[in-house]
Structure formats: C-alpha cells, structure tokens
C-alpha cells in the first residue's frame, strides 16, 4: 500500500468531503450549489482514475498502439457532466425565484421570513 497506488483516490475523497462540508455549513444558496458542483467533479476524478491504465493512451484507435485506457468510464462521466450542468441550471433558476419571493438568498434570513409569515 504505497502512496502512489492510492493517492488519486484519497485526494478525490478529500475534495468530495470539502464539497460536502461547504454544502452543509454555509447558508448562502449559491455557495451551496458551488459546493455541490465541487462534490460531483471530485466523483468524476475518482471514476477517471479508475479507468487509467499504466502505459496506455487515449482510447482513439490508431495503428501501432496496443494498450488503451478503459473507455467505458469516460462515456459514463460524459453523461454525468452534462446532467450535472443541467441540475445546476435548474438549481440556479430556483435561487432566482427564491430571491424574488424572499428578497434574500441566505438560508437564515429565509427561515426567519418563513416563520414570521
């Protein structure tokens, strides 16, 4: 179990946890969405690290190359990136609506206004 074998996975988990921390501690809605983005991007790093083969190249068939990196996780992550941006767009639209309704995007102030309604 040397460092080089698992360093990628540990850093991906560290980034995942940082994103998680941002989502649960900060009250600002936009910062939460950015933390969620951080989380999902770190999951992509984890998957792409799994796909890499030592000595391989990009999975584009060319004469003379024997070893390719695994293309299947690449396809999965392509879909995941695009779905992630769709989710972020809808989330930001909701933030705009919340701002129109409550006049703020801080969670504490929204809760106060809700309680006083």
């Amino acid at each position, binding site marked *: 179990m040397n460092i080089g074998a698992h360093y990628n996975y540990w850093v991906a988990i560290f980034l*995942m946890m940082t994103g998680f921390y941002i989502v649960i501690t900060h009250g600002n809605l936009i910062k939460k969405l950015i933390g969620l983005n951080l989380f999902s991007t770190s999951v992509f790093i984890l998957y792409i690290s799994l796909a890499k083969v030592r000595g391989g190249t990009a999975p584009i068939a060319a004469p003379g190359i024997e070893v390719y990196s695994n293309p299947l996780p690449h396809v999965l992550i392509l879909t995941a990136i695009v779905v992630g941006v769709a989710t972020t767009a809808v989330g930001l639209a909701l933030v705009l609506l919340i701002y129109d309704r409550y006049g703020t995007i801080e969670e504490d102030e929204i809760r106060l206004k809700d309680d006083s309604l």
Partner: protein
Amino acid sequence: MDLIIDITLLTFLGITALAINRIDKLFCIIMLSGIYSLLCASLFVTMDAVDVAFTEAAVGTGIVTVLLLSTIGATDTQQRSAPHRPLLALLMVCTTGAILIYGTMDMPAFGDPEAPIHQHVAPRYINESLHEVGPPNIVTSILASYRGIDTLGETVVIFTAGLSVVGLIGFRGMQKFGDRKRAAGITRDDMDEHLVLRIIIKMFIPLILLFALYVQFHGDYGPGGGFQAGVIFASGFIFYTLMYGLDKAMQVMPPRVLGYIGALGVLIYGGVGVTTMLLGGNFLDYNVLMHEPLHGQHLGIFLIELGIGITVFSIMLLIFFAFSSRKGLRQ
C-alpha cells in the same frame, strides 16, 4: 514524470477547494470554481480522458460560470452569514471521509492493467469497435452506438432542464419585436464607444461557429462530438449577446425558435430509433439503416450526433436568455 504532474495538479485542486470554502465574496468563488474546472480538465488530459476533458472545459468552465455570474448579477454578491456549526460538520465530514478511505483500501492500484474493471466488457469494446461500429474514437462509438439509449436519456434530461428553466423563470417583458426595435436603441455613438471590442467580436464569432461545426463532425476521429459542439456553438451566440445586448440577440435568435430547435434535436434522435424499429431491427440498431452494416452505423451516429448538437445548442442558449432577462441585469 506523470506522477509529478498528477500530484501537482491534485494539490492545486485541494488548495482551490479550501479557498472556495474560506472566501466570502461570491464573485471570487465563482472565478475559483472556474479555475477548479480547468484544473480538473487538465487532470483528465493527463489521465488519457480527452473527450471528458473537452466536455468539462467547455461545459464546466464555460456555461456554469456564465450562469453563476448571471445569477449573482440579479441577486446578492456577498455571503452574509457565518458557517453553521462548523465543528459538528467537521466531525461528520472527517468520519465520512475516514470510512470512504477505508473503503478504498481494497481498490486496485492506480493504473493497474489487471484491475477487474478492464477485464469484462471493455476489451470487447476496444477490440471490436473498429469492425462492428467504425469510428476510430472508441468513446464516440460506445456513446452513440453501444450505449445509445443512455445518451438518448441524457439528451432528454438536457431538454427537460431547458423546459424547467423556461417554465420557472420565463422571459420577462417580451414585447412585440416592432416596439423592441425602437426601444433597443443601441445608437451609433454607443457602439463607437466600444470600437475595439465590437470589431474583434465581429471577427471572432464566425470562427467560433466554424470551430463548433468542426468539433461536431470530427467527433469520430478525435475528441469531440455533439455535446461539446453544441456548447461551443451556443457560446458564439452568448458572445454576440454580451456585445450587442439581449434585445438584439433575441431578434437574431428568438426564444420560440430555440424551443422548436431543441425539440427537433430530440425528435431526430428518437426518430432514428423508431426508424430502425420500423425497418425491422431493434430500437437504435443502426445496422438496418443501410445495406452495409458499417455504413448504417456511420449514418446512425452522424444523425444522432446532429440531434444531440442541435438540442444542446438551443437549450444552453435558451437557459442563458432566460437568466439574462431578469430585472437586475437589463440595462
């Protein structure tokens, strides 16, 4: 050497993530999240995932940053509250992280060619893709042919996101185009004030659109394909909007037309599937489209990449228009 680059990029990513946590100004953290996306794209390139890097750079750095900036333009620009219960959160996060790291102890070493993930389906895709499907880019052949139904689902997700955003926010103050022309009023003097920008942008927009078409049709032979091309095409129009104003951009590309185009893309994709069923094969089985299976695959992949590109372009532009037409941003 690869390992040094890897470790350096990952360290930068960690520092950027910590900085995003600490800073208060929303504008700064949006810029930092753009930097984070670009660092991730570089990391993907060093790990041989060139298609993924392309998509992350175009989508994660481009579109998400633009949407975030539009949002803070219409709302606040500063975070105002302190973190809630940081110590409890830190404890929870550390526990979860420790459990996950314990879970990774069983995972194969980074880059191991004997890992189980490389043993079952992937060798079939890598070895048979040239004979069965055709394009040299194995990722495109998996995305468009072997796993075509997942990609159909993804296209419909993008379309649904566009529908949701338009349904939630809509376009404020859409008047008839006649009134718009008089009210849009970017006079000659205004434009001369931004002379340098106007000329450079006029020069660049055709090149950007041409590059998008290149990426779209070259996706079989190198990194590229429908998603990246759609996003780059939309960014050309976003560029135009930034210079000439939202009203003029909505005249050039009315949102109603964008809605039709988006639906057309999904229709093309689904239509190819139904056509193959009517011709006797399974859903999205391109072998039956023409006399030669390989030619049928080529035609099928071309058509669905076109559908994906059209849908992604129109929905991204539609979402951008919806965000930009909020009251805070209209000047």
